[in-house]
């Protein structure tokens, strides 16, 4: 089905669809997923397109489905994921779907409004009950049960004997109601100031919170009762209560009436409770009915909308009653597209077949990569850096190995790498089961999507852990260390630490530790110095190796697109620059590793200094008796330092390399623009002449 090496070859096709068959054909092509439609009506406004009505209907259906979804969420009913993928239904079924959604939505809205009205009623009755109870308590403290409220109040307020003579008795009025707890202090203060202290206010808290009918929140409220004298105060008190949105309740005078009312309210409350429960049950039943179907409905409506959007992109040919669509599709998938088209025509029952016609065009086709579940994650990582042009070499193919390898070079622990590998392996083996239990957890989905890359990273980390000799930060000694200290007791007694001399303590016959770093380094105090040198040189080698790979791939691109100008003005200067400077450095690293032993350690060149001096053109020439050879038969040589030239004609070679590299820069910068300009001018001249 096409390789991952390059992006797939695409072809532009024209499809002629009969009007009846258009919908089903597009549905089949959508299920296939290998076709990208071109918009043939780019200047047409969205509202002037042919199928705008259908799309508006789909939008309306989606809105209803969202409402039902919200109601389901309010009741904590989770939509079950059956894993089904239903196809888009035929246009005539759309009417049925619309009717169903309409019915369910209106029913739900009705139930909700009823429930809200019932809850409001319930709240009022509960508050009235509280008011009655509290006033009962209040007056029971201050008088006998048979007096009226006013008498009781008078008794409570006016304590001296004179109040009993009813001639001068003052007529007190009162109001009782309920107010939210937070507003009580402000309410008290305002009443005191507005009525100049001539009212009596009594507040009592309601123990349990009451439910707000609209939002469903629990609000704490208090019962209050206010006594005042005269009409003016009464009006003032009422206005203040209205201002604070306190609900006032009519409270009967005599305590007998109060107790009767209390009983009545209690029974009404119970009845209301039952009705509320039944309303809730009804709502629950309606929701449970749509719970099974709603996921399929959502998918179907999405597909219908997508099909109509696609049909909007086609040209409508009135003369032949057909739709013309243009699409990009990979050449390897042309067969499948043909099959889908014929299947679609068959399903719709139309007799005229749809025609697929390949077109040749100079436009640049879109880039398409065939990926399977393994290569998908690497391709998406590379896409985040940038998408390759049409038919360029695909970097993702090499990323499959280089990305985990470079991670492992950085990670480098055997034990932890093994655990990471097991985690990745578990996810890969249990792939089917883990994929079917769809999770909403983003972090888990991220890990699961990268299961192959985690497995590879773990595997390479095990290998680099072996080489770094690092298993849970401890070293393994599998082959026997190559360092054999041989010191006498007195020497060992006299000092705390000793530095082993490679000349005497290193076993040159068996050679270095065969696989990785020697385990003796783990116990040494200068381990960091040693490994730093190793890792820096390793990074230079690996980095330049990867850059070389990249430049070689660009050569492959130039050859494929038959672009000799690029080979001479881009590839050759690039590779000369890279190799002359940094390839030379890598060569020096290997040369120093191979030839400089401990016998010439004073002469061992510092590569960093030599590299810097190369650019500064400064060379320290050695003495005349300096021998460029270095082996342990010669005595330790004099006259050389880390900065001395260490092979014959080094200064000439390096000057040549630097000049060669610097020469590449104007070649890269200047030649190609002028050549392109000359070609462009020639083309213009030719077109003017002809």
């Amino acid at each position, binding site marked *: 089905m*096409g*390789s991952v*090496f390059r992006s797939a070859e695409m072809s532009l096709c024209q499809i002629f669809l009969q009007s009846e068959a258009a919908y089903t054909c597009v549905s089949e092509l959508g299920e296939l997923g290998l076709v990208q439609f071109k918009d043939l009506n780019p200047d047409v406004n969205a509202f002037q397109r042919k199928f705008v009505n259908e799309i508006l209907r789909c939008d309306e259906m989606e809105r209803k489905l969202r409402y039902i979804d919200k109601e389901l969420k309010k009741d904590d009913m989770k939509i079950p994921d059956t894993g089904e993928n239903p196809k888009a239904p035929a246009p005539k079924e759309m009417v049925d779907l619309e009717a169903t959604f309409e019915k369910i939505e209106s029913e739900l809205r009705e139930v909700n409004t009823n429930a809200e009205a019932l809850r409001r009623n319930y709240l009022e009755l509960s508050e009235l009950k509280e008011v009655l109870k509290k006033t009962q308590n209040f007056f029971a403290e201050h008088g006998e049960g048979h007096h009226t409220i006013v008498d009781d109040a008078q008794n409570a307020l006016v304590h001296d004997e004179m109040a009993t003579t009813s001639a001068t008795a003052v007529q007190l009025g009162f109001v009782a109601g309920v107010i939210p707890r937070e507003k009580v202090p402000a309410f008290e203060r305002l009443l005191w100031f507005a009525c100049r202290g001539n009212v009596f206010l009594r507040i009592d808290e309601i123990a349990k919170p009451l439910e707000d009918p609209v939002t469903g929140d629990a609000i704490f409220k208090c019962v209050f009762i206010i006594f005042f004298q005269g009409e003016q105060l009464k009006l003032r008190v009422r206005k203040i209560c209205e201002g604070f949105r306190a609900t006032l309740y009519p409270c009967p005078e005599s305590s007998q009436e109060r107790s009767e009312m209390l009983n009545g309210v209690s029974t009404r409350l119970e009845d209301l409770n039952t009705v509320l429960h039944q309303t809730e049950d009804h709502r629950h039943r309606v929701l449970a009915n749509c719970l099974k179907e709603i996921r399929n409905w959502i998918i179907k409506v999405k597909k219908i909308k997508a099909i109509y959007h696609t049909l909007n992109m086609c040209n409508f040919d009135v003369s032949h009653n057909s739709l013309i669509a243009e699409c990009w599709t990979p050449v390897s998938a042309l067969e499948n597209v043909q099959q889908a088209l014929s299947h679609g025509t068959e399903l719709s029952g139309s007799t005229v077949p749809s025609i697929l016609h390949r077109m040749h065009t100079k436009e640049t086709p879109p880039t398409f990569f065939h990926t*399977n579940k*393994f290569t998908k994650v690497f391709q998406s990582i590379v896409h985040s850096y940038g998408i390759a042009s049409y038919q360029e070499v695909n970097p993702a*193919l*090499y990323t*499959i*190995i*280089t990305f985990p*390898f470079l991670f492992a070079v950085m990670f480098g622990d055997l034990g932890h790498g093994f655990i990471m590998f097991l985690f990745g392996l578990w996810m890969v083996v249990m792939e089917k089961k883990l994929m079917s239990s769809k999770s909403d957890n983003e972090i888990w989905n991220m890990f699961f999507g990268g299961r192959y890359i985690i497995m590879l990273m773990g595997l390479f980390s095990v*290998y*680099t852990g072996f*080489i770094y000799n690092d298993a849970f930060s401890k070293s393994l000694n599998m082959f*026997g*260390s190559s*360092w*054999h*200290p*041989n*010191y006498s007791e007195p020497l*060992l007694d006299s000092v705390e*630490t*000793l*530095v*082993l*001399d*490679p000349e005497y*303590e290193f076993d040159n*016959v068996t*050679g*270095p*530790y*065969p*696989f*990785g*770093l020697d385990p*003796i*380094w783990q*116990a*040494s*105090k*200068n*381990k960091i*110095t*040693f490994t730093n040198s*190793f890792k820096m*040189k*390793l990074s230079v*080698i*690996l980095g330049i*190796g990867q850059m070389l790979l990249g430049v070689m791939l660009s050569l492959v691109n130039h050859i494929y697109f038959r672009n000799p100008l690029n080979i001479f003005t881009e590839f050759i200067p690039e590779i000369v620059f890279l190799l002359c400077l940094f390839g030379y450095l890598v060569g020096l690293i290997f040369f120093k*590793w*191979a*030839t*400089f*032993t*401990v016998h010439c*350690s004073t002469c*061992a060149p510092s590569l960093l200094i030599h590299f810097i001096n190369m650019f500064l053109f400064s060379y320290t020439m050695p003495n005349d008796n300096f021998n460029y050879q270095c082996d342990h038969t010669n005595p330790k040589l004099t006259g050389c330092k880390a900065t001395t030239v260490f092979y014959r004609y080094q200064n000439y070679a390096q000057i040549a390399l630097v000049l060669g590299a610097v020469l590449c820069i104007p070649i890269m910068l200047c030649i190609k623009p002028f050549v392109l300009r000359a070609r462009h001018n020639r083309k213009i001249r030719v077109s003017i002449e002809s």
Partner: protein
Amino acid sequence: MDRKIIPAVAMTSIWGFVGIVAPIFVQFCMRGSPNKGVVQVMLVLTAACCWLFWLCAWMFQLNPLIGPSLETNFIRYIQEEWK
């Protein structure tokens, strides 16, 4: 001199097998499969990267210019236990 070469030959031949022989083998085994190219590239790259990594570690220790700095107690222990 001889014993030094054994690990070099062994590792080079292992990774040479993975990087050169195995892809040729895959060329004939997976002839029809669409993933043949991917598998071959993976094998070659793995062999190249891992062999290069091993080579750097081995060559770095071939001619050491400094030695480890150890505590004397540890040196005593080594002189007893390790041969």
